[in-house]
C-alpha cells in the first residue's frame, strides 16, 4: 500500500534520513521505533508532504506521492496525528473535528464520521463545545486521533501517540489503535515506547540516526537481544 524507496531528506546541510526504505501493506499495523533525534518525525513529515525528499520515491497504491502537496496527500487517503497532538487550541472540539474533514471540502456530509468518532471516544461528545485547550493531555490525543480519522484515511500515521501520557491512557490509546485497524484503516506509527509499539503492531522497523537498522515481525524484534537492550530497557 505504502512503499518508501531509498529516500534522503535533509533540513539544511547533513541528511537526516539516509536511504530509508520501508513498506506498509493494507490492513497492517506497522511501527517504527527509535531514540530521540533518530529521524522519526522527519519521516512522518515527509510522508505527509511537509518536507521534500532530495532523492528516492514514496508511492501509495499506484500514486507517486513524492511531488504532491500536503493537501493532495490527505485527499489521496493518508492523514496524520502529529507529534505533540497539535490540536487547534482556540477552536472547540467540534471545530477541530470539522477541520479534520477539511480536505473533503465543504458540504461534505460528516455526520456519519462524527457519530463513529463519538462512539470510539464518548468523552469527545461530552466536550464537543469546549475549547480544545481546556482538554487534558489524553483527551487532546483522542481529539487529534479523531480529527485525523475525520479525513476518512486509508492509512493513518501516528507520531508518538503515547508521548507524555499516563500508563493507563497509553494503554487506552493503543487499544483504540487496534480498534481503528479492525474498522479497516491501515496504521503506521512511530514510537519511543517500544514495548507498547511492538506489542500492538504486526511488523516493525528500527531506525537509528536516519537509517533503518532492523526490520521484521514485531514479536521477533521484541525477542531480539539488541532491541531488548537498546529499546526495552532489558540488560
Amino acid at each position, binding site marked *: 500500500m505504502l512503499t518508501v524507496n531509498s529516500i534522503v531528506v535533509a533540513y539544511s546541510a547533513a541528511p537526516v534520513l539516509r536511504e530509508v526504505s520501508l513498506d506498509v501493506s493494507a490492513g497492517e499495523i506497522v511501527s517504527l521505533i527509535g531514540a530521540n533525534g533518530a529521524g522519526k518525525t522527519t519521516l512522518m513529515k515527509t510522508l505527509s508532504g511537509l518536507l521534500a525528499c532530495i532523492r528516492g520515491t514514496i508511492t501509495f497504491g499506484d500514486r507517486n506521492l513524492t511531488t504532491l502537496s500536503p493537501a493532495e496527500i490527505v485527499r489521496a487517503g493518508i492523514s496524520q496525528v502529529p507529534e505533540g497532538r497539535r490540536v487547534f487550541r482556540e477552536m472547540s472540539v467540534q471545530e477541530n473535528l470539522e*477541520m479534520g474533514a477539511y480536505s473533503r471540502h465543504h458540504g461534505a456530509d460528516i455526520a456519519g464520521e462524527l457519530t463513529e468518532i463519538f462512539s470510539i471516544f464518548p468523552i469527545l461528545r461530552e466536550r464537543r463545545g469546549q475549547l480544545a485547550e481546556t482538554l487534558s493531555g489524553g483527551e487532546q490525543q483522542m481529539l487529534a486521533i479523531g480529527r485525523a480519522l475525520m479525513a476518512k484515511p486509508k492509512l493513518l500515521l501516528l507520531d508518538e501517540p503515547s508521548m507524555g501520557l499516563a500508563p493507563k491512557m497509553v494503554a487506552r490509546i493503543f487499544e483504540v489503535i487496534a480498534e481503528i485497524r479492525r474498522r479497516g484503516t491501515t496504521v503506521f506509527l512511530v514510537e519511543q515506547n517500544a514495548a507498547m509499539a511492538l506489542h500492538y503492531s504486526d511488523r516493525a522497523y528500527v531506525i537509528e540516526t536516519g537509517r533503518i537498522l532492523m526490520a521484521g515481525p514485531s514479536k521477533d524484534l521484541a525477542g531480539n537481544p539488541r532491541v531488548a537492550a537498546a529499546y526495552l530497557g532489558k540488560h
Partner: protein
Amino acid sequence: MLEAIQQAATGLAIGSVYALVALAFSVTVRALNQINFATGELFMLGAYLGITLTATIGFPFWVAVIATAIAVSVIGVLFEKIAYRPLFRANAGHPGRLHILIICSTIGTSIFLQNAAMLIWGAQALPFPKVFDPEPFRFQGIVIPVEYFWVTGVAMVLMGALNVFLQGTWIGKGLRAAAQDRETAALMGVSLPAADSWTFGVSAGIGAVGGLLIGAMSFAYPTMGAAFVLKGFTAAIMGGLGSIRGAIVGGFLLGLAESLVIAFISSVYKDVVAFALLLVFLQFRPTGLLLKPVQTRV
C-alpha cells in the same frame, strides 16, 4: 453635554475607520506574524478609488464601497504573490531575516503606491463628491452629518461580514486554522499559499474601505496613509495586535477618546491622545486589552 454627544458621534465614525485599519494590520499579524507597512497606501488607494468610482463613473456609494474592496483585495493578492511569497519561500527557515526583508518589501511597496497615486490623481488633495444629503441629521439641538452614519454603518457591516467569513465559511475556517498552526493546518489539507493570498487580500480590502470612508468624511491625498496608519496601529496595539475583536474594540476606544478630548479639553490635543495611548500601552500592556498578557503559542 450636547457637545459631548456630538463629539461622540464623530468619535464613533472616526473610531470605526481606525478599527478597520487596525483590522487590516491584525489580519496579517495574526496569520503570518508580519506587519504590512503598505497598509496606509492601500488605505489611500481606497480613498482615491472611492472618489473615482463615485465622481467619474457615477456609482452609488455602496456599490463604490464593494467595488473598491474587491479591487484593492486583488492588489493585496498580487502584492502577496510578487512581494511576499518569493521572500517567504527563500527564507522559510530564517524568521528573523524574513521579518527584515518583509519590512523592506512592504515599505518599498508603500513608496511605489504613493508615487503611483501621485501620477494618476495628482499631488493635491481631492475632495469627495457630494453623494450624501447635505442636510445633517438634527435631534434636540444635536447636529450630525449624514455621512457619519454611513461611515459607521458600512464599517460595522464589513466587520460583521469578516466575522461570518472567518467563522462560517470553508475558506475562513482554513484561515483560522492556519493562523493557529500552519503546519497542522497543512496536514488537514489547507493550502498555505492560498491561505496567504487570502490573508493579504482580506487585509488590503478592509484597509481600503477604511480609506474610502475617511475620504467620504474629508478628502484624499497621496500621503494620507501615514496619519491614519499610526492611529490604526495604536488601536490595534490597544486591543491586542493580532486580535480581531481587539482591533475593533481598540478602534472605537481610540475614536471615542479623541472625541472626548476635543469636547472637554481642546482639539489641539487630539493627536496627542493616540501617541500617548500608544506609549502607555507599549510600556504597560503591550499585549493589549484582549490578549492574555503572556501568550503561549506552541
